[in-house]
């Protein structure tokens, strides 16, 4: 079964990607949509397929993969099943960085300022979490540190948006805290994709070190793992992925929590195998969620975070219960 896992997930992601391209407010027959996309007739359908639906699907796949992977890495590195970038305030801090770059006009003046500001926010948040509740900190400390980082970044985000001279900015806290892929364009893909790719590559390269870490820090060190380098790679990798993803699509939560959990048993808990599988699973989950928000409330821009929290929060509560039983046992 586990041998079929990767091909099965690849097929699932491909099918969802195709569905994401074919589902939209303009109900056009599948054949016509695809011919407009590939052949291009210069009409409005070609514009919709190439400039709206294709970048949206690409972003969903890339961001989902990045978030699934960073969730798996954070859980492996912190050796804590509750670790996840959205829940611990990393995404919120990335959103704060991105909003600061946009409101100050820095993002307009300098192309890379937007993803870099998101990256900086995420980096600071992961650093704070690692310092407050590192691998030895335990589940409770980590969650408490995450609540602190979340509250602080959320409040600062609301303050910046309320101070904006743009009257619409204050209403967009929902976008920044819940995430959405509506009306994204190739310019968003161009900003986010390089950082997500580089960050993901960095994280995937740490899979063997993370496997060794399951035996404990001392054992990992005797196995030749450079713990300082591992920490830096985890910090930079998650910051690049979460920062760039959040800068273009807002904070999308719970993917990094749910995906590694669902897939952990199939990979027998081995991080080296869990990481690539979590990336595929994350892509599938975000593509599916983005299709669902379009089907549930067509044309109303239901935020992704709403749907993912409805799925993910009960999941999180279940994990807390399981952690408690494990502690009591």
């Amino acid at each position, binding site marked *: 079964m586990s041998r079929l896992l990767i091909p099965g997930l690849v097929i699932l992601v491909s099918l969802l990607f195709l569905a994401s391209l074919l589902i939209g407010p303009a109900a056009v027959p599948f054949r016509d949509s695809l011919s407009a996309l590939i052949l291009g007739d210069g009409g409005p359908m070609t514009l919709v397929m190439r400039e*709206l639906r294709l970048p949206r699907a690409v972003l969903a796949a890339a961001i989902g993969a990045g978030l699934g992977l960073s969730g798996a890495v954070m859980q492996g590195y912190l050796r804590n099943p509750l670790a996840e970038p959205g829940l611990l305030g990393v995404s919120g801090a990335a959103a704060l960085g991105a909003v600061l770059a946009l409101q100050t006009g820095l993002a307009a003046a300098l192309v890379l300022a937007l993803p870099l500001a998101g990256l900086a926010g995420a980096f600071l948040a992961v650093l704070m979490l690692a310092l407050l509740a590192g691998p030895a900190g335990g589940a409770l400390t980590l969650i408490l540190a995450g609540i602190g980082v979340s509250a602080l970044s959320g409040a600062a985000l609301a303050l910046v948006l309320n101070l904006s001279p743009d009257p619409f900015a204050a209403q*967009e806290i929902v976008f920044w805290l819940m995430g959405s892929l509506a009306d994204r*364009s190739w310019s968003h893909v161009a900003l986010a994709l390089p950082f997500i790719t580089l960050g993901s590559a960095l994280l995937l390269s740490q899979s063997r070190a993370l496997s060794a870490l399951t035996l404990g820090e001392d054992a990992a060190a005797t196995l030749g793992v450079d713990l300082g380098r591992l920490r830096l790679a985890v910090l930079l990798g998650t910051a690049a992925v979460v920062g760039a993803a959040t800068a273009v699509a807002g904070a999308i939560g719970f993917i990094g929590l749910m995906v590694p959990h669902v897939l952990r048993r199939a990979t027998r808990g081995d991080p080296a195998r869990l990481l690539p599988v979590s990336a595929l699973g994350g892509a599938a989950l975000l593509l599916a969620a983005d299709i669902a928000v379009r089907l549930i409330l067509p044309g109303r821009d239901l935020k992704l975070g709403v749907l993912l929290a409805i799925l993910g929060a009960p999941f999180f509560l279940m994990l807390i219960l399981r952690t408690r039983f494990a502690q009591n046992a």
Partner: protein
Amino acid sequence: MSVFARVSEGLAPVLALALWAGVGSAQTAPPARVVSMNLCTDQLALMLAAPGQLISVSYLAHDGAVAPLREAARALPANRGLAEEIYLLDPDLVLAGRYSTVATVAMLNRLGVPVIRFEPEASLDDIEGALAHMGSALGREAEAQALIAGFRADRARLAAFLRDARAGTEGPRAVLYSARGWTGGSQTLSGDILRAAGLRNLADELGFVWGGMLGLEALLMADPDRLILGSDTQAGWSEARALLRHPALRQSRAYRAGVATNDRDWVCGTPHVLAAIARLIEETAP
């Protein structure tokens, strides 16, 4: 000569009359200390009030769209529509909009300060009613009738110009597109401005008679001839306004045909919207 210049010329004497009016008969005890809390009542009151009658305007009027009114507004202190500050101005009449500063209006009512609320205008015809309403509120009926007569004459002149410009051809299919994808239908003042400029409104075609949020994909698929975009000059950033710079919108047929802007002078129903209509006719000329 452009119709814009012609209409402006037509408006100039009316405005001069409005701003520097010393003529007209004062009615029995017209209000002497009038405070306006709404950008649109500001503009109507500035056009009609006697010198010294209006003592404060809303802070928005200080950077309003119509230049002569803006200068007149800046000569008066601004208010932010807070009950306390309005009460301390000791007004004998407060002018407010129907839907704004609701809490302040309720408070002023309890304190016994007379408040007149104005409905937002939903058509060019409503502008005549608003002028008459403001005229009677301020005891300036004669000035209001003069403005209404000038407004009617300008409208007739504009309609004649439109007939010449379009020469019997059907107007282009146009769509208003503002921040967050808001579009206005035929039952709104913006929709009436489009109609007066000889444009067919896409919003009506899509069922948004009153206006509503139009998704970018739906807009592109409807393939309009012309786009009238919301103005994009403010500082700061919002995803709502970033939508108006979306690459897909910029590659559309309508965008490449030339974009007109739905600017601040569309907001309030005053005779000045005729200048906006004249500009729109020129911007969407074939």
